[in-house]
Structures are given as C-alpha cells and as structure tokens.
C-alpha cells in the first residue's frame, strides 16, 4: 500500500480501472495478515486483483477477529445444540441470537435485555489505559446498535503474577482506563473478576461486558434496505487510529516488535460516546432508524459490508465525504481506521433533516456518505474514481473457514495423573492459618482497591454490585423487575480439562446468578485461547466449546453471542485456555434479591449441596503449594439446576436471609466473605473431615442464612429438589469459629485480605 502522502499532495489512488489494467502488480497481502491462499481467493472472487482499498477491506474483514475463520466450525455447536426457544411471551425467549451485534432476551413485561462480553486483550497489553478504555467503548456500542439503552458494565480481568513488575504497569492502567471510560460514560460497573497467573504475564485478559435494556418494539437490526435510503456516518471524525488493528493486532502474537505496533491502539473519548448514546436513543425513539450498526474493529469496512450484506441490497459510498481528523488519509486507511465513537445509520430520505437536527442538538457530527442501491454491490468512490466494487457478502460472511488440526496435547495425561492427593494437608489446628493465607492471596483478597475506582451508583438502579455474587440492576422502578449478571472463568480448571473447565465456568456464573434469587436464562461468552495454529490449543478450544454447548443445552440457557480471542500467547507458550462465561438471570422483584451479607446474630447457617474431594486446580493447591494437576471438580449440572430451583423460590418466599456461592477457596473463604460483609461472626461445626469441608471446591453449593421460622419450609423445598441441606451452625459474635479446629476474629480476617492490592499497586 502506498505510504501516506504529505499534506497538500494527492496520493495516487489504486482504482478498479487501474487494478484491471495492472493484474500483475505486487500487493502487500502478507503484511496485512492474509495468506497467499486467501489473497488468491480474493482475486478469484473479483476476477481481477483487488485494489489497495479492497485489499485493506478484505484483510480486516477476513481477519481472525472479524471472520472467526478458525472458530466458526466449532461455534456452530452453540446454535446446533441451542435449547428449544421457549413459548412466546415467556421470560427467557430469545429475540435475537448469535450473528447479531448482541443477543437479545425477553425478560417479560414488554422488556428485553441485550448483553455481550468481548475481549480487548492485545490492545490492553500494548497500551493498558486506552486499550481497556476502548474495550468498554466498543462493547457499549454493540449494545446500543441493538436499540437498547446500555445500563451497566462488568469486566473480567486476568494478569500476570500480582508481584511481577510488568503487572504493576498493566493492571493500574487497565483499571484506570475502565474507570475513566465507564465513569465518564455514566454506566455503573457492577462486578466482574480479577485473577492472576504467570500464564497471563505477557498476555493479560481484558474482557468487558455490557448489558442494555429496551422495550420489545425498540429492537433493531444491522441491515441496509430500501434503495435510495441514505447512509449516514455519525459520531467522531475518522483519524489514523488503530489502522490495521483488527488484522495486525488482534491476530498476531507478540514478539519483539510489540513497540512498533503501538500506533495500532485506538484512543477513546467517553464524552463523545455519552453524546452518541443519548443521540442514538433519541433517534430510535423518533423512529428515524431504518438500520444501524456500530463501528468497531474494521471500522467503515465492517459497517458498510455488514449493513449491505445484512439487507441483501447494494450500497454506494463516497469516501470523500467521510469527515476526517487527518486529511492525508487515503481510501484504504479510511476503510481500516478504528477511530472510536462512530456509528452508521440507514435513514429514509424524508427523515434525513430530522436526523441531522437531533444530532446537532447533541453536538454529534453526522454526514450522509452514500446510499442504499439495488445493485447487490458495495461500491465506493474516492476523488471521483471507483476504488471498491465488491459483493458485500464475500467480505461479511463468505470469508475463509478453516478446519484446523486439533490434537490433545502430549502432556495432558501427565498433568491429569499429577493428582493433588500427595500434597501435605494442614492439621485441624492449622486450618485457620490456611484460611488467612488464602485471604492474603491476591486472587481472593479484598478487591476494593479496584472496584472503588468504578462508579457503581450512577443511574440509580444498582441493587447489587461487587463483591456480591452477581450484579443486579433494577429494570422497572414500579414492578421491581430486574436482571442479575455474573461472569466467571477458571483458567486452571480449563487447563486440566477444557471441556470440564468451560462447564465449570458456566456452572459458577449460573450459580452466582441463582444465589441472588434470579432465574438464569441466557449466556454470553468470551473464549480466550492461544494460537489456533497450534493443534494443542485448537483441541483445547474445541473441547471448551463442546463443553459449553453441552452445558448450555442441559441447563436450558442458550448462548446468545460472544467473542473469540485467539493468539493469546507469548512466543510458543499459550495462556491457560480461559473461557469466560457470562450468565443473565431474571428477578421478578429485585426487592426480594439475596445478598451474600450475613444479617442476623442467632440465625441458622446451612450448606446447600454436596461436598466431595475436589482439590485439582483448587485455590489451596495452587496458592499454598504452587501445584496444578489432577482433575478439576466434576461439573454436576443437574445439581446446579436443582440448586437454582431451590434458590429462586427461597428468595421469593423469604426463606433465606443471605446466600453466597462456593467457588475458589471453598466454604472457608465464602464464610469469611459473608461474615465480613455482614460484620457478624459465626460458630460452625462440621460433620466430617474439616479440611475437605472447608477447602474443597465441589461445585453446586451455596452457604446460606436461614430466615427466622423458615427451617421447615426450606427443608421441604430442598427435599423436593433433592438438594442436600447441611446444618453448619449459627451466626453471631466477632469471630469465625470452627468447632475443634480454630477461631479467627473478624479483625484478623479483614486485616488478612484488606490492603493486599493497595500494597501491590497503590
């Protein structure tokens, strides 16, 4: 591609006519991330060589990030195994599924919710602050494009060792970027995850989730229909941001050249995004949108190709009309630019004037850059010449699909054989020390240093936020209808067994949502893996997708959309396979939600669920012994479903006063967290091996405070759903006491976990 011309000069354009006349001209397809076969395929589709702008367009559209070329074959499982769509009108019905900007779920009372999680891993390593900030911005525009008002964000973060020097660079930047963008945009941050592991040292994971709410009739799709309708680009001007980001950044692993890629990261302006949100909602309410699409990765290329392909129409665009921040940009750069805070709308000619007036009211620049045609072609001109002339579906949906070899890695059996049984277990008197050690471990320490940097109160509908089991947002102030959301993932479990690991991530998020009293209804996922060109990684990916698809089918919670992030590796070493799963639940009345906060001294404490010997990949094995081996806990989805079936009516009928899901660190850590949150101690006696009962990570369990007088009703409910119910003891005092083992004061517990992150990053 030609270098950018100096200001004032006109760079020579590579036009369709020139391309036809110079079939042999060498083109930099490899530098743009295309293989020789892909390049030949483009030539075949066009029956000539592509122009430079066309090559740029295909390179970003066919990048791994945009085309899902390595994952598509596997992701079909989500649709093939999707649970039956429920009868119309029942909460949980899918109104839009995979393939749209985000999935949309009916939650009843005429409301629908759209939610999606997406990665911004590579940009966040290169430039943590802007990388994470624009990750938030991008997912918010996906939600906006569906017609919804964004109402909350969450983030799932993974970094290298907490005490590694580079983590001190990356983590504060990432958290600062999320804080800056989300707070200024006015979206409450209601939770997420924070974990550390050496495998993420050169490749942090920054996964951002956004949830939005709309009325059914506000649902919109990305489709350009109606010849003569105008194509309007609105929002920020286009500059040289993130050019090549989609293909170069997101699809290549980091080597020595990381510094040279710096300019590929985009810069965010949350103020413009806030204006764009309000402007889009007003445009939608005024009925002026015939189609809408956000500009994310691959910018104008993606928006025009997807809108044209989605509508089965054609589109003609004049690239000279794209408002530029840098007037020296050529057509290829305009097409590839990932400048943030831009949207594209399809508008009937009679509405253009009102459209412009609303944009002007919000100080949002809006420009007609083209129109819908009936030709079935995506045509673009620049300086009077045709520079793009393609069938849009060839870029949008007919990219290459690879069936990459997948082979179970050689070391997988040895890993499974290295069971944690050989690890020395603490004596009963040492169990208090073990608990304090786990609370000091950064993964389980108090996360306030991070979560305090996020506004969780704005919009005034946040009912629960971190460190609760799940975030809960009120949707309707009158009826109390609301939604619960949790994201979970565990790279160690998935490393030991990706099929089980994906199901355990699903199970944990499902359980976290259920623990608030909500009914889990739908799933989004962000699949973070190493290079798909590594057969071992491809096996991990295939197994994880299979596990998640099977799990969702069993639980009746469809995958509504998500994102795949490959090439998360440094050199030849991939990250742990890390499927992150987000689960959405519905609460008929948020006033009945359950908090993890223990409330009443004297109340009875119970454990719901069955505890087994589950230490493979556990927090204890890893944090205390540095051991990762054996088998992860067996996901028992029938038990998860039964537990959720108990928790929803128990919350609704007021049988429980508090509930906390058990996950990393087991019962011991959950007890400590709920005691500290409620500023009350507990006296617990355990029937059986106290170490196993306290630290095993068997899934499908919650610890709960029973409401006064509800014992019989709770027992009957558990009996009905065959959920084991175990008496643990009573709340009260200022110590967590386990009879025959240890007693630790609340102060000791608080001191252990407080200040850990501040000492590392403050």
């Amino acid at each position, binding site marked *: 591609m030609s270098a950018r011309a100096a200001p004032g000069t006109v760079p020579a354009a590579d036009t369709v006519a020139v391309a036809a006349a110079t079939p042999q001209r060498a083109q930099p397809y490899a530098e743009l991330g295309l293989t020789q076969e892909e390049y030949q395929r483009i030539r075949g589709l066009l029956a000539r060589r592509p122009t430079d702008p066309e090559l740029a367009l295909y390179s970003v559209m066919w990048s791994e990030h945009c085309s899902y070329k390595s994952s598509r074959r596997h992701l079909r499982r989500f649709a093939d195994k999707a649970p039956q769509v429920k009868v119309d009108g029942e909460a949980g019905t899918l109104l839009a599924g995979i393939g749209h900007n985000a999935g949309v779920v009916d939650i009843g009372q005429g409301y629908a919710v759209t939610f999606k999680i997406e990665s911004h891993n590579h940009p966040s390593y290169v430039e943590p602050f802007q990388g994470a900030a624009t990750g938030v911005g991008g997912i918010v525009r996906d939600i906006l494009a569906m017609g919804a008002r964004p109402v909350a964000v969450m983030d799932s973060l993974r970094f290298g060792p907490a005490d590694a020097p580079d983590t001190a660079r990356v983590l504060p930047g990432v958290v*600062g970027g999320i*804080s*800056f963008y989300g*707070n*200024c945009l*006015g979206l409450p941050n209601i939770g997420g995850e924070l974990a550390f592991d050496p495998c993420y040292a050169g490749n942090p994971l920054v996964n951002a989730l956004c949830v939005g709410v709309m009325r059914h009739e506000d649902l919109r799709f990305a489709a350009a229909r109606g010849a003569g309708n105008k194509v309007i680009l609105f929002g920020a001007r286009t500059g040289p941001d993130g050019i090549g980001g989609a293909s170069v950044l997101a699809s290549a692993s980091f080597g020595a050249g990381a510094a040279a890629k710096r300019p590929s990261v985009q810069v965010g*302006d*949350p*103020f*413009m995004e*806030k*204006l764009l949100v309000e402007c889009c909602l007003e445009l939608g309410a005024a009925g002026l949108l015939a189609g809408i699409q956000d500009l994310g990765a691959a910018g104008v290329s993606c928006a025009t190709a997807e809108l044209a392909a989605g509508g089965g129409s054609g589109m003609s665009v004049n690239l000279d009309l794209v408002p530029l921040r840098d007037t020296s940009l050529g057509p290829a750069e305009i097409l590839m630019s990932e400048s943030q805070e831009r949207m594209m709308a399809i508008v009937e000619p009679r509405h253009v004037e009102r459209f412009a*007036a*609303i944009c002007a*009211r*919000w*100080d949002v620049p809006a420009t007609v850059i083209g129109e819908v045609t009936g030709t079935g072609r995506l045509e673009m001109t620049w300086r009077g010449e045709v520079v793009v002339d393609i069938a849009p579906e060839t870029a949008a949906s007919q990219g290459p699909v690879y069936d990459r070899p997948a082979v179970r890695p050689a070391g997988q059996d040895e890993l499974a054989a290295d069971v944690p049984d050989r690890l020395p277990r603490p004596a009963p008197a040492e169990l208090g020390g073990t608990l304090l050690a786990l609370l000091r471990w950064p993964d389980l320490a108090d996360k306030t240093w991070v*979560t*305090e*940097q*996020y*506004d*969780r*109160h*704005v*919009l*005034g*509908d*946040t*009912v629960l936020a971190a460190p609760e089991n799940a975030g809960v947002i*009120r949707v309707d*102030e009158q009826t109390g209808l609301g939604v619960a959301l949790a994201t979970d993932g565990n790279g160690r479990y998935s490393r030991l067994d990706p099929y089980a690991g994906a199901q355990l991530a699903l199970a944990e998020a499902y359980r976290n949502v259920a623990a608030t009293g909500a009914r889990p209804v739908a799933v989004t996922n962000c699949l973070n893996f190493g290079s798909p060109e590594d057969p071992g990684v491809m096996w991990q990916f295939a197994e994880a997708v299979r596990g998640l698809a099977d799990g969702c089918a069993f639980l009746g919670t469809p995958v509504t959309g998500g994102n795949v992030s490959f090439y998360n590796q440094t050199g030849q070493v991939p990250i742990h396979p890390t499927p992150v799963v987000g689960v959405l639940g519905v609460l008929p009345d*948020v*006033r009945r939600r359950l908090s993890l906060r223990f409330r009443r001294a004297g109340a009875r404490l119970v454990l719901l669920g069955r505890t087994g010997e589950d230490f493979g990949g556990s927090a204890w094995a890893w944090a205390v012994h540095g051991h990762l081996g054996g088998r992860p806990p067996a996901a028992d989805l029938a038990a998860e479903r039964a537990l959720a079936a108990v928790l929803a009516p128990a919350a609704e009928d007021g049988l429980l006063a508090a509930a906390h899901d058990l996950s990393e660190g087991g019962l011991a850590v959950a007890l400590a967290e709920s005691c500290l949150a409620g500023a009350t101690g507990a006296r617990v006696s355990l029937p059986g091996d106290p170490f196993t009962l306290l630290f095993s990570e068997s899934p499908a369990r919650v610890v709960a405070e029973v409401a006064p007088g509800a014992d019989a009703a709770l027992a009957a409910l558990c009996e009905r759903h065959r959920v084991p119910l175990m008496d643990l003891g009573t709340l009260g005092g200022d110590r967590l006491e386990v009879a025959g083992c240890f007693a630790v004061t609340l102060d000791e517990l608080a001191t252990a976990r407080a200040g850990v992150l501040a000492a590392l990053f403050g």
Partner: protein
Amino acid sequence: MAGGAVCFDTGEPVACVRGRTPVTARVGVVTFPGSLDDRDAARAVRRAGGQPVPLWHGDRDLHGVDAVILPGGFSYGDYLRCGAIARFAPVMADLVPAARAGLPVLGICNGFQILCEAHLLPGALTHNTGLRFIDREVRVRIERDGTPWTGDYERGQEITVVLKSGQGHYLADAATLARLEAEGQVVARYTGGNPNGSAHDIAGVTNPAGNVVGLMPHPEHAIDPLTGPGSDGLGFFTSVTRALVAR
C-alpha cells in the same frame, strides 16, 4: 427541540406558569452534555414530593422553576477543567443572576465544580490526593442547618451518602477557609476519615445567603436502601420542597 421543557417520566411537555404560588415545588434539573446523574436527581426530587423539571444547557430559560439542581457527571467531558466550560452554557446566563437573587440552587459533584467555576461559591475542586477516582459510602456531618437544602436536618446530624469523584478535593486560600468557618458556610464535613484531601474535611459549602449549596458527595444516591446506603440523602430534597411549598 430547542427549549421546551419535558417531563422526565413521560417526555410530555411541561406547562410553565410563572409567578404562581407553588403547590408542588418545581425543581429544575439541568442537563449539560455529559451530565450523568440528572435522572437520579430528578428521581430524588420526585421521591421528595416535588416535580422535577428538565432544563437544557442550551436553553437560557429557567421555565419558572422554584429551585435548580446542577447534577453530577462530566459536563463537556470535563475537558479543560471540571465545570469550566459548563459555566459558559446559555442556561447559566439566567441561572447566575437568579441564584444571586436568592433562587435555591444545589450543585452536586460536577454541579459543585460548576458553581465554583461560576463564582457562585468560593474555592475550587481538584484531584483527589490519591489521584484516583473513588466510589465510596461516606459519613458526613451536617454543619449548617436552616438553608433551603438542609432544613430537614439537625445541625451536627451525621448521615451516610455516596462519594464518587476523581476531583473532589476542596481547596481554598486560608482567608477564605477562615471566613467559611466563621460565617457558618461549611454545610457538610467528612467524619471518620478524609477521603480526598479536602481542606478542613469540607464536603459541602454554601454562599453567605445560604440559598446556593455545593456538595461533593451525592445525596441523590442515598434515597432508598435498595439502591444506596440508605435514605439519609433524601433530606436535601425534602428540605427544598418543604421550604418552597411553605413559602
């Protein structure tokens, strides 16, 4: 859309009757580009029995409201300096003289910053000493009762509200601080720890007349235990609706 006030709930136009005796207090809530807590302020007014009236930054007309709230957020992206651009918004052209003439005005967070930039309140707000944004439930003591915004509180009463800001550090020169203390212009003070480095633990101040109040913490996020730390903040809104109806 240049102008006409619309109802926050229904989007319907709100009839504006100037100069009548209010039966329900009509409290304007200004939306600047980048305002974020405007809906929350309107909700708090409604919960307090008042009628929230949306005011638009580009519209000079105050639409005859009985009081005005400048809500939290990042007006104009907080570019240049927090509140520095909002101060020049058309709506301020009418608001500033009205405030000087006694109109009750409450600035919350970014609204407080705007009031300082507009010289309706003394002092300035700058970066928290920790240099990070903080969202935290804080205890504050009401130091000045009897203003239109604090009439429902007792002097010395401690309440829990939500602080959420990156630039909540209140600053003024020594003479101004001495005057604020001597004249009873400190409205609220942090107790149990200074979260952002504010001089004299100041969380809120008023003008000498008492009608203009700036608060760094958000009382509108403490009006319902379901969505905040409690309902301690509602008093700012019931105070003004009561004061206006009694007038």
